[in-house]
């Protein structure tokens, strides 16, 4: 198992998509920094002070932690899932397309171990991606925006329903928690992509199918007509990761939705394992 993991990690690091995902996230942070600067200047500038006083009176509202929070929130729902789906979707289907799957499977390695080691590597990659992104945002925030306490207002990120504040050190811990809770939520997408990777021969099809499923639920989740269906969408449950940024973490719902995500992850993996174990590999 250890050798398998080592080989899979090496394969992942040598793939182009690995480097591409980190470059894309770095570019996104640069874009966010530019947008954040221009927005803060426009909103906190002299010309709108009279209008702006009604809420964001605190001069330290726009700081590096706020920047990191916005950046992480915006990228989590649409940007990071693309890379996770891309990497997970290519795990089995990619081997099949390259013609190496058959060769791997004739070796004395069980198919279940192979698939689980691939999933573990994807989980490691997801954590690396999320931790890198959060770390980079905090670093950029510290260097270019400056640090302070993290102030939270209702509405803007749909995070809290009354104003709250996290002191700087506590906020940094919350970002660390978010790297774990965010990874756990993203593993639902990774599990779906692994399943599609087992089902489809082409990695592009597996990735697109995963993203299509995720985006359809994500968009429908935000349409009023389907409000009564929201509790049944996995995208609704995935939102639990954001709870770590609330001044008082709601452990009840955090535990509940985190567990539901866990059920999705292990349930889908079980299905993928069962299918892969019996599948005829003819390519």
């Amino acid at each position, binding site marked *: 198992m250890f050798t398998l993991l080592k080989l899979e990690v090496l394969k992942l690091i040598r793939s182009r998509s690995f480097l591409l995902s980190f470059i894309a996230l770095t570019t996104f942070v640069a874009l966010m920094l530019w947008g954040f600067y221009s927005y803060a200047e426009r909103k906190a500038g002299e010309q709108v002070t009279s209008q702006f006083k009604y809420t964001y009176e605190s001069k330290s509202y726009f700081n590096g932690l706020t920047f990191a929070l916005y950046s992480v929130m915006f990228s989590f729902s649409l940007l990071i899932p693309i890379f996770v789906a891309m990497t997970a979707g290519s795990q089995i289907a990619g081997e099949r397309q390259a013609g190496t799957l058959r060769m791997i499977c004739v070796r004395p390695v069980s198919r279940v*171990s192979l698939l689980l080691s691939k999933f573990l590597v994807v989980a490691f990659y997801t954590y690396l991606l999320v931790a890198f992104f959060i770390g980079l945002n905090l670093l950029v925030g510290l260097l270019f925006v400056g640090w302070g306490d993290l102030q939270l*207002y209702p509405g*803007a990120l749909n995070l809290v*329903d009354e104003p709250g504040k996290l002191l700087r050190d506590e906020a940094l811990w919350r970002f660390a928690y978010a790297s774990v809770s965010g990874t756990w939520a993203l593993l639902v997408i990774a599990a779906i992509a692994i399943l599609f990777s087992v089902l489809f021969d082409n990695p592009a099809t597996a990735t697109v199918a995963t993203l299509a499923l995720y985006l359809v639920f994500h968009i429908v989740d935000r349409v*009023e007509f389907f409000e009564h269906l929201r509790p049944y969408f996995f995208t609704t449950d995935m939102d639990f990761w954001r709870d770590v940024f609330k001044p008082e973490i709601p452990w009840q719902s955090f535990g509940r939705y985190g567990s*539901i995500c*866990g059920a999705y992850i*292990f349930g889908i993996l079980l299905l993928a394992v*069962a299918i892969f174990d019996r599948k005829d590999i003819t390519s």
Partner: protein
Amino acid sequence: MWAKILLTVLCLSMIGIAAHFNSLRERSLLAAGAHDGPRLRLMTWNIGYAELEDDSRAHTKDLQAVAETILSNDPDAIALQELTGAEQLKILLGYLHGRYRGAVAPPGNSDRVDAVLVKDRDAGFESFPADGKFAIAASFHLRPELPKVVFVSAHADAFSAARRRVFTGEVVDWARNRPHQSIVLIAGDFNFELNPKNESHLYTDNVKNDSEAYSYALKYFRDLGRDAGYTAVNDRRIDYLFGPSEAVLLRRAEVLRGAGVGQMDHWPLLIEVAL
């Protein structure tokens, strides 16, 4: 095989944990003890009609039903919105058999007025401007030995979030500058649209403006009706009663959903606090 069994066990454990967390009761704000000083019961109600009607202001024919709701719930003070003017208030006070005194705010740039009613015979009334309109406040004592209560009735613009923000800012600024000894409460229809998921057009900054206005109110006051649920049709919580953060204990927060008559699109919000 062991891997499949492990995955099955993990999946079932996760379902079990999720079910466990679901069954645990959330802590309630209302769960504190009952014996804690005199009670102040307040009501806020926009008695106007839905926008689809020809005249969306309060209808005089409904005032008897409004009075019956007030009498059956027996609040110490009531904030009403969307009355046509002083004449309607006079009729309503008549239906209340002289148990309440009241006053309406000047109309300002609006075709409808806010009113405030109180039981205390010695209550004083004061209107003040906010974004071109007027809000009205009643000052009264629940008991002579208790601090003075200042109760504001206000109605923010229904169509412009930017105007709501300015209006809320001016009402809150007026309220927070009352003497420190008094207990200040702001009630009314603020029309805040705070949940982005309920915002069907995502290309405006309504949510941002409303969240800023709400945040500003919460900077100095507490949202006492937060757990009472929606107050208007289409599951909207747009009627609020803001009170002091520490001087009062919340004892009851309820939306009287059976109270609406005619084509009213709001229900009364009833709040009871211990002083």
